[in-house]
């Protein structure tokens, strides 16, 4: 179960959306226009089980998400889902890693305080004894030109999704 975002946690003016999250259900998210720059040299690392439930986060993940580690462990990874991300991107991610392949893409993540940050994400299935036991996700600082391309691309994809 993922709780709705709390207005008390959000800094500044915000917009409200209700996301329909796979395996979770509806979640109210509160979004501001504040971008938090990705810190130079850092890697954000997390692991989930096969259902997308967070089992491990590193210090950089905790700092950039704005949540406490205790709030993240046991939560679905979609706790970071930003409404500007098209659903098709995550469908592609899950289909790719469930096939046992590696997925890579640019992702806009939502923080607890309503701000956002862009990452270049790579997700790899963790295989132990021939079985997929979870997924590792590594995010690094993205090339800004790629981010600008994705802003336009994702907006078009969301329009198409809204129209169908």
């Amino acid at each position, binding site marked *: 179960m993922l709780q709705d975002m709390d207005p008390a946690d959000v800094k500044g003016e915000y917009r409200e959306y209700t996301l329909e999250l796979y395996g979770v259900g509806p979640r109210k998210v509160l979004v501001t226009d504040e971008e938090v720059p*990705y*810190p*130079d*040299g*850092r*890697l954000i*690392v997390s*692991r989930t089980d096969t259902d997308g439930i967070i089992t*491990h986060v*590193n*210090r*950089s993940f905790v700092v950039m998400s704005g949540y406490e580690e205790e709030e993240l462990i046991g939560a679905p990874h979609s706790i970071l889902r930003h409404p500007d991300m098209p659903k098709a991107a995550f469908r592609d991610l899950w289909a790719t890693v469930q096939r046992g392949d*590696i997925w*890579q893409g640019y992702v806009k993540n939502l923080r607890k305080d309503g701000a956002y940050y862009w990452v*270049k994400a*790579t*997700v*790899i299935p*963790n295989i*132990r004894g021939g079985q997929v036991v979870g997924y*590792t*996700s*590594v995010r*690094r*600082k*993205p*090339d*800004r*030109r*790629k981010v600008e391309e994705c802003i336009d691309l994702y907006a078009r994809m969301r329009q198409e999704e809204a129209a169908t």
Partner: protein
Amino acid sequence: MSYTFTVSPDFSPDYIAGWFVFNTWLQRTLETGFHLELMDDFDSLHNAIRQDRIDLVYANPYDAAMLVREKGFTALVKPRGGADEALIAVAAESETRAVEDLPEGARIAATDDPDVQLMGMILLEPAGLGKDNTVRVECDNYVLVAKRLLTGESDAGIFLTKAFDELSRPVRERLKVLVRSDIQVIHHYLMAGPRIADLHPKLQKALVNMGEAPKTVRILEQLKLPGWDPVDPEEVEFMIDLMETLKFSPA
């Protein structure tokens, strides 16, 4: 019965004598013959591992995947305190102030150390730079990486952070660090193979205890190691997953 011990070729030549002393300690402690075979380069090391000639190795993070998942090695210990990190530096008088200032076609000096190269190229990604749009200037060691920057033969250099910090002060003062990695979980490991599986517990205990007796502390000091910490197998699996993730580059 004699076994073979080797050390990842990214160690500094200053420590060669130290590794021979370590090997003598190893043989006395385990009452087992170990031959220390030092490789000239990573190709030689990888060939020896593929041919199952290695029983104990102070391994580079890049090689951990093959050792654990293909050759059945077990990580026994890691150096106490401090992970492997990389940095990007330029000449101090360079107009480059951030990696994003580096242009396509930039000449990047680096050693053949694969995990440092990997971390370094990740640090260059925010500039849209990768192996396809940069020119690699390969150097035999980090002193030569620095030299290429100071002579203007390279635009930027990739350093193991520890190696950069060990450069002489006059050299370091003529260089400018653009970015340092902060990955925290990439380590060298001392890894033992399946032929010496019965020695693993005794060896791990002896290594962890090296910091407790003056005689063994002196051996560690020759290698500039503060001590060894035991390793949880899942920690190594996690690092291998991370390295595999970082190696991925879509076609």
